[in-house]
């Protein structure tokens, strides 16, 4: 009976409906997805999105959902929906590595709030997804467990750091996935793989159980096939959590209702700094066509300026690495994680464990962050970056007095080749140029597919909104998806 379901186009809504209406069972759906994962993901040269399959936990949850249907009861809101989780979110009893050798054997004793909330809403967790080590990277080439390949072109990167999350949704090996975004790590791979990626407002979703990279910038968010799916998942994981004091106690709207509101009359800002003369012409024309569709849908397009944009990358790479150097100090080989077997003294054990356990990019960022925080350089780098961060945020506050949303390209180019930038850290950092600004300002951002390059590579359009106004950007993204679908029909 499952043969009728096309896994590639299954959405959160259609997966739940298929189980509820007995077109399939949750158990059969999960088993079908594992077959698809085995066929497309696990062999050398294949996508490599999954690091670890949580079959037992998934099948147990599937049985629970099937029992609900058998009783004739309605499924919970995410009942029977198969979702996969970036390997930076802990799950009790499930190996969680953050893409790092230093956590190669780590089996956490507790569940991440976002993940357990999805399970409580009926979602089925399929497994853990590959990512850049400690979510540090823009190509997924920094994983200790090998790169992820872009399902749209296996010779290209899927983006990063949530590369496995974007690739699994694009390949149809998960209906939706959770990722984390510190400087673009949900939106950029979303754009590269042709799926939707939503970074919620800072404070909207609890980070309890998210392995920390840069605490003032880390967000959990969904990667999905549609804006509507992103809204449904956000709703069921957002909201106050006593285990995370940065998670804000604000009502969580019903985003399915929010996206149905008309976009007519919404003012959309287009910042000139995100459309430089030398930009990729295919990216420019795809985003400009997107803006045209929004105009036709009744939005008012307004040119705006975010004057401190050019300072976002240096600001971000000082603040993020400083916080990372502090957060990653905990990996010392004492309580959990990798311990070098060779060390004879305690200090040697620390150093050898970290030397052998961390990969090159993580070491580079720890070094940069430690330098920026060290005596004599703190004011020039870290404090300076914190001040420029204020200016970048103020740019957005000023702009949002004039507009309701801001549209930009998500990335400067479509997905690049595996190996193309891996030897040049600065070139890799510049891949985040359009996404780090929203991270620094803590505002929500979504990437939606808006076209393809002539090589068939997806291009993403980013929509940014005011703090806690995910409803508005989801509404714009949803309206855009519909306009684009009608235009290309």
């Amino acid at each position: 009976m499952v043969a009728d379901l096309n896994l590639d186009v299954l959405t959160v809504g259609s997966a739940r409906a298929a189980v509820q209406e007995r077109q399939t069972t949750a158990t059969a759906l999960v088993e079908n997805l594992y077959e698809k994962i085995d066929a497309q993901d696990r062999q050398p040269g294949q996508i490599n999105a999954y690091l670890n399959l949580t079959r037992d936990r998934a099948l147990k949850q599937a049985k629970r959902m099937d029992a609900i249907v058998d009783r004739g009861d309605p499924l919970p809101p995410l009942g029977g929906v198969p979702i996969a989780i970036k390997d930076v979110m802990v799950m009790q009893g499930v190996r969680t590595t953050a893409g790092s050798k230093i956590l190669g054997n780590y089996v956490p004793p507790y569940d991440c709030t976002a993940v357990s909330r999805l399970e409580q809403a009926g979602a089925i967790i399929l497994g853990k997804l590959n990512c850049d080590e400690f979510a540090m990277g823009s190509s997924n080439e920094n994983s200790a467990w090998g790169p992820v390949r872009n399902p749209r072109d296996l010779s290209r990167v899927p983006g990063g750091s949530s590369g496995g999350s974007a690739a699994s949704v694009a390949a149809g090996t998960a209906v939706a996935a959770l990722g984390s975004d510190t400087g673009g790590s949900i939106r950029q791979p979303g754009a590269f793989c042709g799926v939707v990626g939503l970074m919620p407002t800072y404070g909207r979703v609890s980070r309890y159980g998210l392995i920390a990279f840069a605490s003032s910038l880390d967000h959990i968010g969904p990667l999905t096939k549609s804006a509507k799916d992103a809204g449904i998942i956000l709703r069921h994981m957002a909201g106050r959590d006593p285990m995370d004091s940065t998670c804000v106690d604000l009502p969580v709207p019903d985003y399915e209702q929010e996206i149905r509101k008309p976009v007519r009359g919404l003012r959309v800002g287009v910042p000139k700094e995100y459309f430089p003369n030398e930009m990729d012409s295919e990216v420019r024309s795809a985003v400009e066509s997107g803006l045209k569709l929004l105009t036709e849908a009744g939005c008012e397009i307004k040119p705006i300026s975010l004057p401190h944009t050019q300072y976002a990358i240096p600001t971000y790479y000082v603040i993020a690495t400083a916080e990372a150097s502090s957060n990653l100090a905990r990996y010392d080989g004492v309580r959990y994680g990798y311990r070098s077997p060779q060390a004879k003294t305690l200090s040697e054990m620390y150093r050898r464990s970290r030397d052998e356990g961390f990969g090159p990019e993580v070491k580079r960022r720890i070094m940069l962050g430690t330098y920026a925080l060290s005596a004599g350089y703190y004011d020039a780098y870290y404090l300076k970056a914190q001040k420029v961060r204020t200016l970048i945020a103020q740019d957005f506050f000023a702009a949002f007095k004039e507009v309701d949303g801001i549209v930009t390209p998500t990335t400067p180019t479509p997905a690049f080749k595996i190996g193309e930038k891996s030897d040049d850290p600065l070139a890799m950092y510049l891949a985040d140029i359009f996404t780090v600004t929203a991270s620094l300002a803590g505002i929500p951002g979504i990437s939606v597919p808006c076209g393809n390059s002539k090589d068939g590579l997806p291009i993403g359009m980013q929509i940014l909104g005011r703090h806690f106004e995910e409803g508005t950007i989801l509404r714009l993204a949803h309206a855009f998806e519909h306009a684009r679908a009608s235009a290309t029909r």
Partner: protein
Amino acid sequence: MKITQQDVAYVASLANLHLTDAERLRMEKDLNAILAYVDQLAEVDTSNVAPMAQVSQIGTPSDSADPLRTDEPRECLPHEAAMANVPQTDGTFFRVPKVIER
């Protein structure tokens, strides 16, 4: 500001890293390239700007400002669970190599 091999060794020691000779050479090159780019921050006038440690200072409506849960005793992680990932233990405590070198 130009980073030297000495700086690399000093910062590595602060970060509890050792690094191989090849890694140190590479680090010197990479950090200098990145910091040269970061140095453009110096041109921004921030004389009357407050530093931002985290955005929820300004992004959050003030009526949701108290983020703290009530302070009441709750169940702790069982000892066994806390020790489940330890590389070396005597059954009760974490074991590490000797601390004092002589």
